[in-house]
């Protein structure tokens, strides 16, 4: 099975981002870039499917040369090769999905895996748009993927409001990954060594002939309203009394 896995580098989600004084962007100096956690789960799932069924795992990033480090990390985890579509920053989800569609048309994978959401812009859009552009089936928020005996279909269990839902999709299909799908492996030292020599094909953006004019543009960023917080109570009795008499929520 040929699996294409799209990954996006994002600022380390365990660090709280700060906004530039003039609101034009996020301060990224001194913040470590990592593979978006949901994309990492997608890479892991691609590798597990390959280990079981054979085939190839190809990494795809729409980004800049700065993203090579995260792409190499995915290769070090065990992916076979990578494609980087070199694009300017600030593309919206529609443009990213259209670029991906061009690469999918060339690579002809049986399955495209993406994270359900990038934890920087929190859009949760690219996988579904890609599915629409390609006219492919989609299964979002996957917590389990099981292939039919002939590998032509898959049953995907999805994490949805109210519980879990399983749908069947015919391949080729787009699947976006949720947290409980797997626990990604760490890259091994030999894996890291091997990754340095793996193919990373850089495709210039213009060669794909996609309209990149953004339909959705972030004009500025502002800090959210801050909570006062930090209040303390000494014991349960004081807590109950405060909730009743001060907050009046009991």
């Amino acid at each position: 099975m040929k699996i294409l896995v799209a990954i996006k580098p994002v600022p380390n989600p365990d660090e709280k981002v700060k906004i530039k004084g003039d609101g034009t962007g996020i301060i990224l100096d001194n913040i470590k870039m990592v593979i978006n956690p949901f994309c990492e789960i997608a890479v892991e799932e691609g590798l597990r499917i390959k280990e079981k069924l054979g085939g190839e795992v190809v990494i795809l990033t729409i980004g800049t040369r700065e993203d090579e480090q995260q792409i190499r990390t995915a290769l070090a985890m065990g992916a076979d090769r990578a494609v980087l579509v070199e694009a300017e920053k600030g593309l919206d989800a529609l443009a990213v999905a259209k670029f991906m569609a061009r690469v999918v048309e060339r690579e002809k994978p049986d399955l495209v895996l993406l994270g359900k959401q990038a934890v920087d812009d929190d859009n949760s859009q690219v996988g579904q748009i890609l599915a629409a552009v390609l006219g492919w089936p989609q299964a979002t928020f996957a917590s389990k993927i099981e292939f039919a005996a002939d590998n032509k279909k898959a049953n995907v269990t999805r994490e949805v409001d109210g519980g879990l839902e399983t749908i069947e999709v015919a391949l080729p299909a787009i699947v976006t990954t949720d947290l409980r799908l797997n626990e990604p492996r760490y890259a091994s030292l030999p894996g890291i060594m091997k990754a340095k020599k793996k193919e990373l094909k850089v495709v210039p953006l213009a060669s794909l002939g996609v309209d990149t004019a953004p339909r959705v543009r972030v004009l500025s960023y502002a800090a959210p309203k801050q909570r006062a917080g930090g209040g303390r109570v000494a014991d349960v009795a004081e807590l109950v009394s405060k909730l009743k008499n001060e907050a009046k929520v009991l």
Partner: protein
Amino acid sequence: MADILVVVEHQDGVFKKNTLSVVSAARALSGLIGGEVDALVLGNGVAAVADTAAGTGVRKVLLGEGAAFAKYLAVAYAGAVAEVVKAKGYGAVFAPASTFGKDFMPRLSGLLDAPLASDIVGLEKDGDALRVKRPMYAGNAIGTVTLSGSPLLFTVRQTAFDAAALGGAKAPVEKVAVTAEAGSTAFVSRQETKSERPELTEARVIVSAGRGIKAQENFKMVEELADQLNAAIGASRAAVDAGWAPNDWQVGQTGKIVAPELYVALGISGAIQHLAGMKDSKVIVAINKDEEAPIFQVADYGLVADLFKAVPELVSELKKLKSA
């Protein structure tokens, strides 16, 4: 301005209240740029849903029924909504930012080549230009976004818009013919998390537990507290990942976004992604034995204590209060 369409969410024929906030958001847009607000109900045998939607203050309800809509599938939904939008010339489409809206709305964006703003928390005008507010970076930044193209697509954060009133004068229900094309996808099964408690996104009080609860069986204690408070139960990602709580209990950036009147966090450290899901709660109580836990920075009432002692004590205090 062209008219505005709200896609109504229902679960197998039961109207979901998150649609009420979506109607409010759609009305806010109407107030800014004009246009009438209509609702669209897709399903099979869902006249009751259409009837409920008709009482939300919309101009009319479009009802598209067919056996292929008996179970929700993104491919069928996105295709049908695209058809209605094109046929009637809607200028904007709204849906809740639930796992329903987040699933089919981006697909609609791809089908129509139209801009989608996800999880919006505000709509404004700057001169003649529309400005959309939406949280990014786990809610640590609020982006001001501009959209170009048509129709404008929005998924709405339920907690950011007041619910429209239900039960007003009934708007007319108009049947529409829509094609149902599930495009090589099929519904297989659904495993509902059964609960007698209020829904997380609708509860007035939420009791939530994290890593500090240590084991699934200790959720019994959480339930006892929730019983006293008539609360819904939530969980941090750590508790769900550990298998102690079902996935749809997860509160956070990538789980449910909640804003109850009272949020009680038990043994939750307060990771950025968790705070993103609950920091708009009116009153936050945190019980944690680690006094350095970041949850205390957002808590109105922080109690540094062993929750296995504090929670039973809290339960008995609340019982006393009730019988007093």
